[in-house]
């Protein structure tokens, strides 16, 4: 951005190659997105490791945050998938922490929001989808397909309903990933556009500075909303994962 008054709201999602790597004709460079993902994993893992290392009976601040997040995910998983679902706890908890920390890290200026790229959220959603499919088929075999046959429908309507249910099942990874990606993308673009108004208006002189107060308050409010959405979307992502896992554990009736 050569002109400081021109604001490009998409620029924040640009992937920059930090270390160019190429294997077999594929570009597998280490980018700013990869760096942020590693930071996310290290931060989430490191925090939980340090927070739980003291294991006090009376938890300190860090330990109670770790315990609250454990309780939060554990009760969510138990509520939606039953006590059998607890074997998926490490998976769901890792997903939740990764998405949450990635979303929150994205709130730092000059940090890329990794969850605002569809490829990242799609990879996570497809991972969930494949795990649900493989576990369901491995555990229940052919009975897993009962998931697509609702109870008490006439035989005549069966093919139609089953086809619709199968398509509905296949849309899960799409809506699962698009939901997180679109929320993060839209939120960050709105934030950037309003901040851009402030910058362009202040360059207009005294009248502009007075006029910039309105978008500035909007930007402040939106920042708070973005923090809420960062948490909410991580919660929604984990919640949907729990619901899908429930289908793998209890297909049919």
């Amino acid at each position, binding site marked *: 951005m050569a002109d400081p008054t021109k604001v490009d709201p998409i620029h924040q999602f640009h992937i920059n190659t930090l270390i160019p790597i190429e294997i077999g004709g594929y570009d597998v460079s280490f980018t700013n997105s990869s760096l942020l993902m590693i930071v996310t994993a290290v931060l989430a893992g490191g925090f939980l490791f340090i927070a739980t290392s003291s294991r006090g009976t009376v938890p300190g601040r860090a330990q109670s945050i770790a315990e609250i997040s454990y309780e939060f995910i554990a009760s969510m998983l138990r509520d*939606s998938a039953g*006590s*059998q679902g607890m074997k998926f706890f490490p998976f769901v908890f890792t997903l939740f922490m990764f998405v949450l920390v990635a979303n929150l890290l994205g709130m730092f200026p000059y940090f890329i929001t990794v969850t605002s790229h569809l490829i990242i959220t799609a990879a996570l959603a497809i991972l969930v989808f494949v795990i649900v499919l493989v576990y369901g088929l491995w555990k229940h075999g052919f009975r897993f397909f009962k998931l697509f046959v609702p109870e008490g429908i006439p035989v005549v309507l069966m093919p139609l309903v089953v086809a*619709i249910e199968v398509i509905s099942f296949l*849309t899960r990874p799409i809506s699962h990933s*698009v939901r997180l990606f679109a929320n993060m993308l839209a939120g960050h673009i709105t934030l950037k556009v309003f901040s851009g108004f402030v910058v362009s208006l202040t360059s207009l002189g005294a009248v502009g500075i007075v006029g910039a107060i309105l978008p500035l308050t909007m930007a402040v409010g939106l920042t708070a909303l973005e923090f809420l959405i960062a948490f909410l979307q991580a919660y929604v992502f984990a919640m949907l994962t729990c619901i899908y896992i429930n289908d793998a554990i209890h297909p049919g*009736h």
Partner: protein
Amino acid sequence: MSDGEFDARRRKLDEALTARKRQEKAKSGPATKGSSAGYAVALRLSSEFIAGILVGAGIGWIIDRLAGTSPWGLIVFFLLGFCAGVLNVLRSAGLVAEPKIKSAERDTDSPEGKQ
């Protein structure tokens, strides 16, 4: 402070905590629906709907490619995808019974779920 007194205080605190938790639980139910921004709901519902159509059309297109039934596969599965999209939207808006309620009952009455 004597042991009995300490126990009584702890019990009181426990009771207060459970009451508080129950209150929060009751509050958080409807609050999670209203607190999210309107555009989050819009994004959710539209992504559900569009995903249904995309997947339906995709399946139809693949069937046409494999079986050479063009354009019937695309037409039929596009319409089925539309139905699936509408079903998804109704489900995520909570207008069609979610399978979640059934699972909660199932978990309490099945003995294998207790392990």
